[in-house]
């Protein structure tokens, strides 16, 4: 028997698959070839999904609910978990929740008493059934305790990308693109089946990808060219490309029309750095030409609506300001910074321009659109922490200069998470100030700025760009939640421990930074409820373990297709069902049943059911001509709930014509309708709404930054001043690598004693998967270099007397780890690389790997936190052969 289901263990999903079941035993996973024409990766399935069978039958699973019997918590304390019944477990949790509710949802500092942490990229949402409905019924929950969000994501891209072109994630339009500059974007490891499939097609078609990164990743391997760049200098590289385009090629080679009509390039910038505005309408004045200086009656308005100048004012165009700003960043200058030959950057700039084909058009869905088959993509460590803003801005400007932003072949945003409505990038394009798209910045004006944070990481107080959507909590400075538990900086209410913390499909005690400190904090949490697959380093500190049914045991319908994370933009959209392939292998419960039962026992059933009816399970149950709403007074079985959701989904896709329920979906697994390719591109929507891209000049951010500075200073907050300096209208290069050297000194070391950059790189076999306990993954991942130790440049290793397989010690002034040396040619001599994140000490199977993690060595540091609240996955270390 074959059961159709999906895998969404990583953000690059879903993969649609079939599970072979023999006599009630799941035996193998195969692609769902029925979906070959719908799924843009030919219906194929990622390697991680092949681990699902072992994941199901793993003998190390938590086999029933457990409660802690040892009240002392600590890494070296045995929790003394003992099995209990589901009834007892749910009762304990519900009693605790009711106690909290009786005291009030917020504590004395104004923070939610209940907190919840989920794994990366929203993947747990495809497994947690109706738990979001429970959380919605509950009220305020602190979801800002990071498990990787902000430190392991492309944070600057999330925030700035969404600000500039509704690009929470960015991708080349790979099916049409011909030239990609990739600064460390590890698409072949983290782009999922669709990314791998499309890039393989593109390569064979002749697309050239230049991979710029310190170590030759899987993606670098599959690229036409590898440029080994010094870590954290990508902004200099990108600035040099901008310089080449602006100063070494005739202006008409750029897309001048695009710049003039569809960006803020012709806006006039006044003497104080703010736009010159019409004295009456207060709208920005537009110059008659792209470049130059113009005089006219105007007003210049600064932060807090202050009038800085008025009368006959002289302004230069934003584009002129940009050109002048870029003048010093020559390839020769950049060569000294990033250790890439100037001639290489010149050539790449020229190739980019040649491939951009400015002026070309293509007809898609009957519409004639510009064709600009060039793109620039950024990887994780390029894209978070200091320098992230500069890289994102330079990347987006490279696209804008040739009109390759949000057009066929170019640089595309593929999903939104901060704007609304969440499911539709185009509908989120609403007119905002000054002819740009609206963006829900957290307010910085005197009246509305929030001195009192709503959650512990203070994103509303500190990070205007984090916005205020359902994902914003996780996009604030999530390490602050952990750091401030130790000491809250002046000006914020004392950061408190949440009285109850839900943890699901995440393991911050491994996946965050300074993991020993995170674990120490966790040990202080008074009550932790962990949905537990196996014992792990985070649920080691839990009070209650609830084994939820895993991928092949449980039931859920999710949205698929349309345009989603990374390369997941489809020509279809619809829904897919995950369904039990077999009976549960242990005494686990479906998350939907757990959520329903918690709602019932805490007296929240009506609100919970109402949330499901509103769409908390992914589809509103009431539509134009259909209503499958649940009776809010009753507790429903998971089948009842998902049957209603399935019917609503059927109706949604067919405009109410079909109302097939769960049985139909179990048989078919998938239902879609066409999603026009033209919807991959935002540019036509901006044109249609008469809006411009907010590039190159960041007047709004400049103003917001100045206002934020005033608000913070008014409240005595001075510790965010370094971050406030990031709010520049035209970001300048700063000596980013020096920041990490300074951190060494702060930790009590000498910079020259820690000459290596330690980086990490995603592993396709493990990224996001929560599958370190799966033997098959360990076995197949071992075929990919680096999974067994630290990658060191072979020649450099020889100089240090280190041979293949030797045990080496990697140290910061504060911490040290040991690893086996893996000698490779494809890495800079000043760089070390630890693939993925292991270092497990409690997870069965994984705790025997003996492979360390960068996470133990990377500090959580205010100084290394950028203005968006993120840091980069990098640390300066020493390396020596262990005795």
């Amino acid at each position: 028997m074959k059961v159709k289901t999906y895998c969404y263990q990583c953000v690059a999903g879903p993969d649609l698959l079939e599970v072979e079941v023999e006599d009630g035993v799941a035996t193998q996973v195969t692609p769902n070839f029925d979906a070959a024409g719908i799924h843009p990766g030919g219906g194929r399935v990622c390697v991680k999904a092949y681990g699902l069978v072992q994941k199901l039958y793993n003998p190390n699973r938590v086999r029933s609910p457990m409660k802690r019997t040892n009240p002392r918590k600590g890494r070296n304390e045995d929790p003394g978990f003992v099995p209990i019944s589901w009834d007892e477990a749910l009762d304990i949790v519900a009693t605790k929740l009711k106690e909290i509710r009786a005291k009030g949802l917020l504590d004395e500092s104004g923070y939610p008493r209940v907190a919840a942490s989920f794994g990366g990229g929203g993947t747990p949402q495809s497994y947690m059934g109706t738990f979001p409905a429970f959380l919605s019924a509950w009220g305020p929950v602190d979801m800002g305790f990071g498990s990787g969000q902000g430190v392991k994501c492309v944070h600057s891209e999330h925030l700035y990308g969404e600000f500039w072109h509704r690009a929470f994630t960015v991708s080349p339009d790979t099916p049409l693109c011909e030239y990609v500059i990739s600064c460390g974007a590890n698409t072949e490891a983290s782009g999922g089946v669709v990314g791998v499939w499309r890039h393989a097609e593109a390569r064979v078609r002749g697309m050239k990808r230049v991979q710029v990164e310190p170590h030759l990743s899987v993606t670098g391997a599959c690229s036409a060219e590898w440029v080994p760049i010094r870590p954290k200098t990508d902004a200099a590289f990108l600035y040099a490309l901008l310089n080449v385009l602006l100063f070494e090629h005739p202006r008409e080679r750029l897309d001048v029309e695009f710049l003039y009509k569809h960006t803020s390039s012709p806006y006039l910038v006044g003497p104080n750095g703010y736009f010159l505005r019409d004295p009456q309408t207060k709208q920005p004045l537009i110059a008659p030409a792209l470049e130059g200086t113009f005089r006219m009656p105007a007003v210049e308005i600064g932060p807090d609506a202050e009038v800085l100048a008025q009368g006959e004012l002289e302004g230069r165009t934003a584009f002129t300001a940009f050109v002048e700003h870029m003048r010093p960043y020559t390839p020769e200058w950049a060569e000294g910074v990033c250790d890439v030959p100037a001639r290489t950057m010149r050539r790449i700039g020229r190739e980019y321009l040649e491939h951009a084909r400015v002026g070309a058009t293509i007809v898609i869905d009957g519409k004639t659109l510009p064709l600009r088959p060039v793109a620039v993509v950024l990887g994780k460590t390029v894209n978070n922490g200091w320098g992230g803003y500069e890289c994102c801005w330079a990347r987006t400007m490279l696209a804008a200069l040739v009109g390759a932003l949000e057009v066929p072949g170019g640089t595309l945003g593929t999903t939104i998470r901060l704007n609304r409505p969440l499911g539709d990038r185009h509908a989120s394009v609403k007119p905002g100030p000054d002819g740009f798209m609206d963006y829900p910045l957290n307010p910085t004006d005197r009246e509305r700025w929030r001195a009192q944070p709503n959650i512990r990481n203070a994103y509303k107080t500190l990070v205007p760009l984090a916005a205020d959507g359902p994902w914003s909590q996780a996009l604030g400075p999530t390490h602050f939640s952990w750091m401030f538990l130790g000491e809250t900086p002046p000006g914020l209410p004392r950061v408190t421990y949440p009285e109850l913390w839900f943890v699901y499909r995440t393991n911050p005690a491994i996946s965050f930074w300074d993991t020993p400190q995170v674990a120490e904090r966790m040990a202080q949490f008074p009550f932790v409820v962990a949905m537990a697959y196996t014992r792990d380093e985070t649920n080691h500190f839990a009070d209650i373990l609830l084994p939820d049914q895993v991928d092949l045991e449980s039931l859920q319908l999710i949205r698929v297709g349309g345009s989603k994370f990374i390369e997941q933009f489809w020509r279809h959209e619809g829904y897919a069902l995950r369904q039990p392939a077999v009976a549960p292998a242990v005494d686990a419960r479906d998350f939907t049943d757990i959520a329903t039962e918690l709602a019932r026992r805490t007296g929240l059933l009506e609100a919970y059911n109402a949330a499901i009816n509103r769409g908390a399970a992914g589809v509103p149950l009431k539509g134009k001509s259909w209503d499958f709403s649940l009776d809010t007074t009753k507790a429903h079985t998971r089948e009842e709930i998902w049957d209603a959701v399935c019917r609503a989904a059927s109706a949604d896709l067919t405009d109410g014509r079909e109302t097939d329920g769960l049985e139909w979906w179990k048989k078919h697994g998938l239902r879609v309708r066409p999603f026009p390719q033209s919807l991959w591109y935002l540019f036509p929507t901006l044109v249609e709404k008469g809006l411009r891209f907010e590039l190159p000049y960041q007047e709004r951010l400049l103003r917001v930054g100045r206002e934020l500075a005033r608000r913070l200073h008014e409240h005595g907050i001075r510790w965010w001043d370094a971050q406030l300096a990031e709010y520049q209208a035209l970001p300048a290069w700063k000596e980013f690598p020096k920041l990490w050297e300074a951190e060494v000194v702060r930790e009590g070391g000498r910079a020259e004693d820690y000459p290596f950059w330690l980086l990490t790189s995603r592993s396709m076999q493990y990224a996001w998967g929560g599958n370190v306990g799966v033997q098959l993954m360990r076995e197949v991942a071992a075929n990919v270099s680096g999974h067994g130790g630290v990658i060191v440049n072979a020649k450099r290793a020889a100089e240090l007397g280190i041979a293949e397989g030797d045990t080496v010690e990697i140290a910061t002034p504060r911490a040290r780890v040991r690893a086996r040396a893996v000698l490779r040619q494809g890495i800079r001599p000043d760089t070390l690389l630890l693939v993925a994140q292991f270092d497990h000490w409690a997870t069965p199977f994984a705790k025997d790997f003996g492979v360390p993690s960068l996470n133990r060595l990377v500090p959580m540091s205010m100084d290394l936190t950028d203005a968006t609240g993120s840091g980069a996955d990098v640390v300066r270390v020493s390396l020596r052969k262990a005795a």
Partner: protein
Amino acid sequence: MTRWVMVADLRRCVGCQTCTAACKHANATPPGVQWRRVLDMEVGEYPEVKRVFVPVGCMHCADPPCMHVCPSTATRKRADGIVTIDYDLCIGCAYCAVACPYQARYKTDEARFAYGEPIASEAKRFDPGRLGVATKCTFCADRVDAGLAKGLKPGVDPEATPACVNSCIAQALHFGDIEDPQSNVSQLLAENHWFRMHEELGTDPGFYYLWDRKEAAA
């Protein structure tokens, strides 16, 4: 005549090991036994270095050294080129394993499972007949045969195609009949430059590696 061959497009392969995992599922091989796997190779020295992912396994040679040395005649070659092992004849001397220049053969003397004791899926598919004998990639001959019996085309219809090919997320692996000039593999070999591994050993392997389009390198 028919000769089934595998074509691996090295331009496409990303070394993800999905084929490795899919093969392990399809053939229920024990831990450590990988009839299909992908190598992670480096060629050159920093900074002039290339990293290449190379799928390997039994090459189903037309002149297989493993077959010649086999004392029990357990290893044979079918008329369609697939090199087979009869687990009931094999004495497990491993002579074939040292004769194979592609390191494609495995011998497992004791039952091995992912977590020590067999889990349900392993118990279901455990075959004691595979202990103490040589095993290797079969080109999923059972699937090929069953597919052909149903009138399907191996290499085109998933049901008749080796699991590794079905699973490949980069369309790097292809399977088909090299004797049929119209087949997918014949077309790929005609349009592209290719090589076979260790060609100098004269085994006439049935596994081709594509490395570039033809017109470009002219």
